[in-house]
């Protein structure tokens, strides 16, 4: 029976000091996958390494690798970690729990910022590396497909990814509530702080028409403006540019208000009272809060944006309940597929055993059968075959739907008295190892394609 095991270390179980040492750099991930795939019991494996997590998923036959297997592997592939006890930071999950965890990771439900989209891409990248290293077989392939599909469903069926949870992104999303089309909007960046740069980056992505950067020191401002493909303007042109800008992002180190009510009143008149979105992320603030009383001006300071982010985070957490339900549905689908697949060798063994019995019985009655005319003998042969198939068909169906294939295996062996050699001939488990598979294995075919006798006549 195939065993799925997952072990890992993430931002919830280990501090950054451990995570930064345990993470695999991109260039060494392939060799780590190769090393893992070389382990004796491992049939298939996946290694996921990001700044927040390192996870190892293995497919083995009959036995789950112990947690020590994973800590040993991590220690061996990270010599600097030998002195660090990894076991307390390691989580260890098996079978459907392991699959559910990977699905949740892929759907960004286990991320530091729930709903962030990067993790799905990182899982895809890791899978690609493992595929190139030939450590992916039918099981991992199925797990990966379903993980991506559940991530897609979570994104499309819940609002988890629709609510921005970074301050700069929240500012951009708010802009969309004021302006319909960003392609004809111009943005003024007052000061070149880190947050303003991030906001500028988002604004560029949103496709704003123009960005103007204004700093007190041209030596600082001009290179920054060039970096963001913005136009640099000196502070002396503030009045002119205010009358043209649709959004103003303030993040200077000024101790006083740069934008006051009289300045804004005159600017609003010159700009024909078009709506103006003001974002003040400077501390101390650069924009007089009284400005928010002016018609068609919308002022947000750092605390307001933080409250947007907090409210969105809460909404996202609410959405995780629905998202986890989607993941559970996908896990159930995978388990169904797995049960069907696990039943194949047993069904084949049972079929072979009963066929041997049938042939032996026909042989015992061969003298009598030989006396029959050819047509009648053929009918008798067909009759025995049909009887066998009809009687075994419900058993095959039950095996395919069985949730515990180990139990079913034992039960079938006892009921039908399957000899051990027939089991070993058919394999007591499915060998999914990509290392050993040659050409197209029977396990690569969909279950419906397998020539099961019950399906031919029933």
């Amino acid at each position, binding site marked *: 029976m195939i065993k799925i095991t997952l072990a890992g270390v993430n931002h919830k179980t280990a501090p950054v000091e451990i995570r930064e040492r345990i993470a695999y750099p991109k260039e060494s991930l392939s060799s780590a996958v190769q090393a893992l795939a070389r382990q004796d019991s491992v049939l298939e494996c996946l290694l996921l390494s990001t700044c927040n997590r390192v996870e190892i998923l293995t497919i083995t036959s009959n036995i789950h690798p112990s947690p020590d297997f994973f800590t040993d592997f991590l220690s061996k592939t990270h010599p600097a970690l030998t002195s660090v006890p990894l076991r307390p930071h390691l989580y260890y999950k098996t079978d459907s729990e392991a699959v559910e965890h990977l699905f949740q990771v892929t759907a960004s439900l286990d991320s530091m910022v729930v709903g962030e989209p990067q993790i799905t891409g990182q899982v895809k990248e890791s899978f690609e590396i493992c595929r190139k290293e030939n450590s992916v077989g039918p099981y991992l392939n199925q797990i990966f497909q379903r993980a991506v599909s559940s991530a897609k469903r979570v994104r*499309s069926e819940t609002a988890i990814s*629709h609510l921005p949870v970074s301050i700069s992104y929240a500012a951009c999303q708010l802009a*969309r509530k004021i302006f319909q089309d960003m392609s004809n909007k111009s943005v003024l960046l007052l000061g070149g702080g880190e947050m303003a740069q991030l906001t500028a980056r988002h604004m560029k992505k949103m496709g704003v028409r123009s960005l103007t950067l204004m700093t007190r020191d041209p030596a600082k401002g001009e290179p920054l403006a060039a970096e963001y493909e913005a136009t640099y303007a000196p502070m002396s042109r503030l009045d002119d540019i205010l009358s043209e800008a649709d959004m103003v992002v303030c993040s200077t180190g000024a101790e006083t208000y740069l934008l006051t009510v009289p300045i804004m009143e005159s600017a609003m008149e010159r700009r024909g009272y*078009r709506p103006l979105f003001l974002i003040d992320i400077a501390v101390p603030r650069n924009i007089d809060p009284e400005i928010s009383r002016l*018609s068609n001006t919308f002022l947000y300071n750092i605390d307001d944006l933080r*409250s947007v982010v907090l409210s969105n985070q809460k*909404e996202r957490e609410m959405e995780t309940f629905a998202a986890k339900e989607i993941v559970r549905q996908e896990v159930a689908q995978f388990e169904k597929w797995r049960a069907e697949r696990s039943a194949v060798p047993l069904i084949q063994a049972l079929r072979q055993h009963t066929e041997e019995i049938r042939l032996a019985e026909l042989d015992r009655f061969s003298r009598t059968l030989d006396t029959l005319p050819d047509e009648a003998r053929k009918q008798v042969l067909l009759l025995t075959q049909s009887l066998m198939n009809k009687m075994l068909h419900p058993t095959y169906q039950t095996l395919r739907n069985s949730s515990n294939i180990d139990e079913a295996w034992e039960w079938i062996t006892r009921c039908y008295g399957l000899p051990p050699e027939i089991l070993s001939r058919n394999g007591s488990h499915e060998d999914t190892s990509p290392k050993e598979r040659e050409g197209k294995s029977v396990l690569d075919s969909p279950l419906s394609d397998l020539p099961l006798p019950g399906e031919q006549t029933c």
Partner: protein
Amino acid sequence: MTISPLELLLLEMASGFYLGAFILYLSEILLSRPPRIPWAPVTAGVGGVLFQSLAIFIRFGFQGHVALLSLREVLSFFSWSLVLTFLYLEHQKKVRILGLFIFGIAFFSTLMVIGISFRAPVLSSGAPIGLLLSIHTLLIDLGLASAALAFMVSVLYLVLDHFLRRKIFNRFFARIPSLETLDQLNNNFSGIGFVFLTAGLFFAMIWSLEKFGRTLPLASQGRLAFIGAILVWLLYAMTVLVRRNRRFRGKQAAYLSISGFLVFAATMLVLAFFSKGSHFIL
């Protein structure tokens, strides 16, 4: 003259579809997550508008003219034109939230249409219904529908403006389109409403000239209609002209559209209740 069973059945079907669309739009807001079948409410709306179109077609055929002479006809045509405009708008601008209001209004309007006992249209002159009068009623009803749409987007504008200023970020906030979109829609609907209203009044004056030899009515009920119409027209003219002044953008324009629709609707109701059959009847 009573409502035909087929027309009644079609109206009932239409109101059922409108109710379905309303519930679907409401659930989109309450459930907060993206709809599983996003086309379902629009499809329900299309179903409703098809049944109502048939009902209106039968009504016009039954009467032999296209004039809207009773409150039930005015309401039916009003809700039909609202839904039709919304379906076009939804296709163009994706203003889904408007569907909640439009289908709510359409449902209650068709319910009222079904509920109102039908009486034969009577004109004080007893004259046959001419083309001019038919055009006048249709244009005024289309003007009312445009004013109602301007009213709805204006209310949404004020709500969003309030949310943005008070930093309220709820599910409803997330569903409202941008202020710029709403302001643009308000501008468009107010303009269209003004054109319909002006043209409607123009046809009424020509009809009056043709019928009575003068453009201004003499009878007291006619005068009431005339004063109401002039009031509405002036308010709408002000809305359109004032928008040219750059100070009256957004919020101010929204207030003007809201008051414009209220005066328009009040005039129609006053006419319906107090004109005693000289204009259109209940």
